[in-house]
């Protein structure tokens, strides 16, 4: 049975837990991970939205950084949203405030769309989806450049906002804030692989 761990250091953790439970439909459990020692027991992981500077600092303090890197390397599927997207990246463009985990071959433009005033909802065209996907962007980052091994799933203008690289699914928006579980379904399929 699937056991999904939501990294619960800061951000919209309970929303992620509920959205994942809904997607699982009883075929697995969701746990909140607030300290080291629990990541190894999970078949999938979620890095939620929140403030990437805060989460990055807490990850380092909690000793979870190495555990997360090891899980990613071992092929454990990771769903990273918004701040999570920043954290899984290799390169955040010279900013020293956040130490990314360097798991995914992408370059991030943090807060690519401006302050909260510029936060938006939009219908995204997503590779592999029949109908558009309503996406919620909140002070969102974007992927400015992606390596050859990264599959681009959606864009807003030029900016890449959804991408996949092997066991990593990274989204600039918040699938946990809407009822549409299609990205969660992709993630759960990754668990079966």
């Amino acid at each position, binding site marked *: 049975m699937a056991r999904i761990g939501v990294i*619960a*250091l*800061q*951000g*919209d*953790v*309970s*929303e992620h837990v509920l959205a994942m439970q809904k997607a699982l439909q009883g075929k697995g459990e969701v746990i909140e991970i*607030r300290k080291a020692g629990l990541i190894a027991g999970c078949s999938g992981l979620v890095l939620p*939205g*929140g*403030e990437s*500077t*805060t989460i990055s*600092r*807490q990850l380092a*303090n909690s000793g979870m950084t190495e555990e997360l890197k090891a899980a990613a390397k071992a092929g454990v599927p990771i769903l990273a949203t*918004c*701040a999570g997207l920043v954290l899984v990246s290799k390169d955040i463009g010279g*900013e020293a*405030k956040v130490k990314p985990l360097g798991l995914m071959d992408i370059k991030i433009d*943090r*807060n690519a769309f*401006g*302050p*909260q*005033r*510029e*936060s*938006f*909802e*939009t*219908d995204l*065209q997503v590779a592999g989806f029949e109908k558009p996907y309503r996406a*919620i962007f*909140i*002070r969102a980052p974007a992927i400015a450049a992606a390596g050859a091994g990264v599959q681009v799933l959606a*864009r*807003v*203008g030029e900016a890449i906002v959804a991408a996949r690289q092997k066991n990593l699914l990274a989204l600039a928006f*918040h699938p946990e*804030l*809407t009822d549409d579980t299609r990205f969660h379904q992709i993630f759960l399929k990754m668990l079966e692989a």
Partner: protein
Amino acid sequence: MELENLRFGTELLKRGFAKMQKGGVIMDVTTPDQAIIAEEAGAVAVMALHAVPADIRKMGGVARMADPAIIEAIIDAVTIPVMAKARIGHFVEAQILEALGVDMVDESEVLTPADEFHIEKTKFTIPFVCGARNLGEACRRIKEGAAMIRTKGEAGTGDVSQAVLHMRMIQGQIRSLKGMDDLQLMEAAREIEADLDLVRECARMQRLPVVNFAAGGVATPADAALMMQLGADGVFVGSGIFKSETPAAMATAIVQAVHHYDDPKLLAEVSKGLGAAMKGLDAASIPAAEALQTRGW
């Protein structure tokens, strides 16, 4: 991608912004240097002010929105969200803050109220946080468009007792709605002068439908953890950091305390050697006319 396809300032975006702050500490700052200290300590956002509440209390006079130049300098100094306070009912101060690129407005009783009515917050693109002492106040603010609630507490005192009182009041009132039938909910809504749909929602969810932070008197890591154990989604710290002896260490410790609020051993560890907390003021000693929490309704 058609740009006209984008929608801004929806309820979901406003409440969603507040959700991203959960489990975090929002710190009052008056200079870019303080904002950088707050960010480095792990704050999820800063509140840009011309003076912290303890000083506003001391100075007396009319307290207004901060100088836009200070707010701009603080926005430029950090990458975390920047909030700023507008007077209760002063919708033009709020318009100015929105134009400056502030991420959230605190319609705050710490400043001198401009109107007996609060701001019509649904008209704005950016979200608002408002103070509340009880469920009725919280629901009225949410109905006006607040995307986040915080306890009023008694700002600038460093005395956590009023924040505790207000948090217990809101939680207790929500618990009392449990199991009521719709007629009883109608009666309850009338009694607390709140919108019925919101009261129904609180009864069903057994919490406020928006993020609920603690504020108004949090001065130590233990205070912050206390508010979290009482059910706060996060904590605002006003004067508590930069009125303490060691602001950077205090800021870091309070962030740790909010993350590990239910781990007393860790709380003991992070509380060590912080020097004196802000001196503070016993909230019970404040004459009724000087209390900030009774501003607004």
